[in-house]
């Protein structure tokens, strides 16, 4: 089974983002960029499937500007076999990403697509669901456990609001990763070197026949109002007194 993994390049999770003063977005110049953490989990799961003999080939796909190639290299260093870079400088929204990924899936015919549940920049949490809709495939979102069965089905345990839920899906299907699916590995130096030789195919939305134009227009981006630090109390008793008589919340 071929596995396709979608990896997004985002502002690193440890960066404190700054909203641009002209209100058009957040500052991304000279800011550390990384693979979206949920995509790291997706790559790791694919690599584990290959190590377990369940996957035959792993294709890492990233969509966006030239620097996305670096994110694909990271996936290759973690164990993906080859990359596909859909190059565009157009702002990509989830529906466009899903359409582009569908076009790649039509070409590649994988048995499983793994995406992150959410990109930590736009916090959209849509792309995997949209991709499976466009493909007419089952979706297994918020996965914390994956078991591939022998009979063209898989069981996926999902992190849901009340706890955990297990569903069975037919292959091919789309899965999105939650935090506890696995712990992604660090790429070793030899593997980073090896990754440099792995192929990355470059494609464009035009070549894939997809119009990626955004549907949502961002009118402005602002910082949320800041909370200011309050007071320090000396004891639990003083805390309870303040909560009762000052804040009046208990």
């Amino acid at each position, binding site marked *: 089974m071929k596995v396709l993994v979608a990896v997004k390049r985002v502002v690193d999770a440890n960066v404190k983002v700054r909203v641009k003063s002209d209100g058009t977005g957040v500052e991304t110049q000279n800011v550390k960029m990384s693979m979206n953490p949920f995509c790291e989990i997706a790559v790791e799961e694919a690599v584990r499937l290959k190590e377990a003999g369940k996957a035959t080939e792993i294709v890492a796909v990233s969509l966006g500007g030239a620097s996305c190639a670096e994110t694909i290299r990271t996936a290759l260093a973690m164990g993906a076999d080859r990359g596909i870079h859909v190059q565009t400088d157009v702002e990509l929204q989830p529906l466009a990403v899903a359409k582009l990924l569908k076009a790649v899936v039509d070409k590649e015919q994988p048995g499983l697509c793994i995406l992150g549940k959410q990109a930590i920049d736009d916090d959209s949490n849509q792309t995997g669901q949209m991709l499976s809709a466009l493909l007419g495939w089952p979706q297994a979102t918020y996965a914390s456990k994956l078991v591939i069965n022998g009979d063209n089905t898989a069981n996926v345990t999902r992190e849901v609001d009340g706890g955990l839920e297990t569903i069975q899906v037919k292959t091919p299907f789309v899965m999105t990763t939650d935090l506890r699916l696995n712990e992604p590995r660090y790429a070793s130096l030899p593997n980073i070197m090896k990754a440099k030789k792995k192929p990355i195919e470059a494609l464009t939305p035009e070549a894939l026949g997809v119009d990626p134009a955004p549907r*949502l227009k961002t009118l402005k981006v602002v910082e949320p109002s800041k*909370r200011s630090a309050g007071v320090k109390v000396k004891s639990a008793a003083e805390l309870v007194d303040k909560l009762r008589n000052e804040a009046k919340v208990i």
Partner: protein
Amino acid sequence: MSVLIIAEHDNATLKPATLHVVTAAQKIGGGIHILVAGQGVDGAAAAAAKVAGVAKVLKADHAAYANQLAENVAKLIVALAPNYSHVLAAATVNGKNIMPRAAALLDVQQISEISAVESPDTFVRPTYAGNALATVQSSDKIKLITVRATAFDIAPAEGGSAAIESAAAAGDAGLSKFIGQEVQKTERPELTSARVVVSGGRGMQSGDNFKLLEAVADKLNAAVGASRAAVDAGFVPNDYQVGQTGKIVAPELYIAVGISGAIQHLAGMKDSKVIVAINKDEDAPIFQVADYGLVADLFQAVPELTQALEKK
């Protein structure tokens, strides 16, 4: 213009999240209909009909919807959506699972987790773990939207008398099936609707020590939550997680114990009315958002807090 709300329910009852979505729908304007899709949903449908401001309840009672499988519910939404200008759902795991599927099938770019309505086509949504608020305008004919419940007041559960109609079921897509669940049974209020939340982090050291927080929660009729670190360490189940990638809460009172205050955690609780932090590190970032901070060892401070709450 009319708005269809996808109900969050457990067949018997309507979840409070839906009542918050009703308020968001009122800000958009137009008639409000609620779709209750499930199996044996009479209870939830009756509750939906009583919500103030709701004009009609659509009931889709079918085995295909029993476990809210996205493939099946999305199909139903796609069949109903052309009658509406907006389709809304709460940004719960369930809403976030189903709505984008329906949106893609309708060729609509969904607007995720709105926190304000500016006009029928313009909405505010938090991005970057709530560190940037984006105002976005949609050009799609039908708007599919998930709603951050904590950003909208709860609509009155009583006062309405909407008609209940049956919606034709759209059938089973046959792509997935429900196998089972492990649901946490608790007598406590739900995390996302509790008036008080007491959360523990890595500083709790073990799941057993969460008993200390439960004692506080008992006194305050509070829900118990956790940081990701506490969940990852296996102290508590996954559905306790508060944060960017867990649950968003905004109670009257949030008590963070042994939690450092990473941006991803703050994203899930910084809109709480009053925040209390108990941490032994006076430089912990959580104190920058706390109204009341107590620098102390939690193993001493939390039992003292329980005691102090006992005294009237």
